[in-house]
């Protein structure tokens, strides 16, 4: 039988004290009460490790890069050994045919019992030829692995929404995972990349409770994606006060005022950056003086400049936003009205003249 999580941790030299610390930190990160700490510990001690297949489609590996930087729990020491990460071509030792053989082996051995984690997405154009893994289109690998999986984790905005490779005109026809995998439960963990602690917390929750955490309508875990960056931003008081950065080099920028006018997408972005922050809680984009680009939102790459408040509207063949289009329309209507008024006046004058 596969080792339990606890056995693996002890074998890795982690003390029981550290293990319990990890359990309470995880409970806190998941928003659970102290009563759940022993439950997490118990689950870790008794449950066999759930094997995870971590597949990579069209992506940039930023999700993996984020994941291995998790501080609570330390991905390096705990999570990578805790989850039975049977396949992840970026961080596994095996390579080539040997590595690909592991996928087949895992699928056969744990049929219907493993978790499929997908980083990146499949391109559909040219029969999937834009992403070849081990001589076969990634699309084949994904649908095959998903068909035998228990559940699917869509890591990052690529797997969740399509991200940059799905930006217009999307030549490879890259689509998010849920467009090709329709019969399995999918949890979306969007972000480019998602926050490391969010990723490890999601994995831990699934392993501990053997189910997904509560999801919103878009399939994201509510515990991390139920509020906008703006709702918990430490610069929010400046927004309410009407104090904004107007230029990157002005006094307001130095004072740390709200970046709303600089195109910060915090008000429309659901993520936990302003609470959990990045790199062990060190900082997050807004704290560093740059607006949020909305990387965890669907279509964030096609909404015009990252530094514009209003979305670009290009349907009319010109660069514009809601105000430019609206003002042009209102101007046209106003001009037409004025012209109509002039003609009406002339007509009326003529009509009156005719009557007399």
């Amino acid at each position, binding site marked *: 039988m596969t080792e339990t999580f606890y056995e693996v941790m002890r074998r890795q030299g982690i003390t029981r004290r550290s293990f319990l610390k990890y359990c309470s930190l995880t409970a806190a990160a998941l928003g659970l009460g102290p009563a759940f700490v022993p439950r997490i510990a118990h689950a870790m001690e008794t449950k066999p490790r759930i094997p995870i297949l971590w597949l990579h489609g069209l992506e940039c590996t930023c999700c993996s890069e984020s994941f291995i930087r998790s501080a609570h729990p330390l991905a390096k020491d705990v999570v990578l050994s805790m989850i039975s990460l049977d396949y992840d071509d970026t961080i596994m030792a095996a390579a080539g045919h040997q590595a690909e053989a592991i996928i087949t082996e895992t699928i056969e051995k744990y049929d219907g019992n493993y978790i499929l984690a997908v980083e990146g997405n499949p391109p559909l154009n040219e029969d999937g030829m834009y992403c070849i893994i081990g001589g076969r289109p990634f699309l084949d690998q994904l649908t095959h692995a998903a068909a035998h999986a228990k559940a699917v984790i869509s890591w990052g905005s690529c797997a969740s929404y399509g991200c940059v490779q799905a930006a217009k005109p999307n030549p490879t026809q890259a689509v998010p995972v849920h467009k090709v995998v329709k019969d399995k439960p999918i949890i979306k963990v969007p972000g480019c990349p998602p926050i490391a602690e969010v990723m490890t917390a999601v994995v831990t929750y699934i392993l501990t409770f053997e189910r997904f955490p509560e999801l919103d309508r878009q399939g994201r875990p509510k515990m991390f994606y139920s509020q906008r960056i703006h709702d918990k931003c430490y610069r929010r008081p400046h927004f309410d006060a009407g104090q904004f950065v107007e230029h990157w080099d002005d006094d307001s920028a130095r004072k740390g005022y709200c970046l709303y006018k600089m195109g910060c997408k915090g008000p429309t972005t659901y993520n936990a950056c302003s609470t959990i922050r990045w790199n062990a809680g060190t900082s997050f984009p807004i704290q560093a003086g740059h607006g949020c680009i909305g990387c965890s939102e669907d279509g964030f790459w096609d909404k015009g400049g990252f530094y514009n408040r209003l979305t670009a509207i290009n349907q009319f063949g010109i660069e514009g936003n809601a*105000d430019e*289009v609206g003002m042009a329309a209102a101007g046209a209507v106003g001009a037409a009205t004025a012209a109509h*008024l002039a003609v009406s006046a002339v007509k009326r004058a003529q009509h009156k003249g005719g009557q007399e």
Partner: protein
Amino acid sequence: MQADINRQAVYVYEAPLRLWHWINALAIVVLAVTGYLIASPLPTQPGEASANFLMGYIRFTHFAAGYILGIGFLFRIYWAIVGNHHARQLFLPPLFSAGFWSGVWHEIKWYAFAAREPRKYVGHNPLAVLVMHVLFLWMLVFMLITGFALYGEGAGMDSWQFLLFSSWVIPLFGQSQDVHTWHHLVMWVLVCFVIIHIYVAIREDIMSRQSMVSTMISGWRMFKDGRDVDDGH
């Protein structure tokens, strides 16, 4: 029915409907101005954040006016049911009546200076009904739904605004950003409507065969000639 035709004035708009019209108009002006200032805020305020609350006041005004618009709209639906038949005209345009479309066509000709004289209506003329139904009524519904969806985002996932609106509107559009953009664009549609609405109301008052502006103040429609009306009341 015949008695109506010879009368020079008909009571068309009842007091609650007139009140709704003007409250609604005021709410829309406030919403458009504050909405514009939310998307393009005023210049930065000096001093400490604790001493300022400008954006907060602007947003509060927007939300309060939004509630007035929303509650007013619910009242307007109620009044369409219990009020006189003119109160229903805006909601139920007779789209399958040939006479209605012939009336629309005649109004278009009147506005294109191709007809010598407009027809005479106790209620709205058919073109007005069509434009108000499409360009005003449904746009108002759209603004209320997207507006409350955006409000629900701030009110939180457990709020009724979120459950009733945000929970399905945001995924429908893809994300919050696009809901903002459409909410903003339709504001401009309403601005265009207001320009046309005011121009046409004044023009009709002067050039058509019945009163317009004063009717929405007093409720009485005055006629300038004694001939038969064309909407058969």
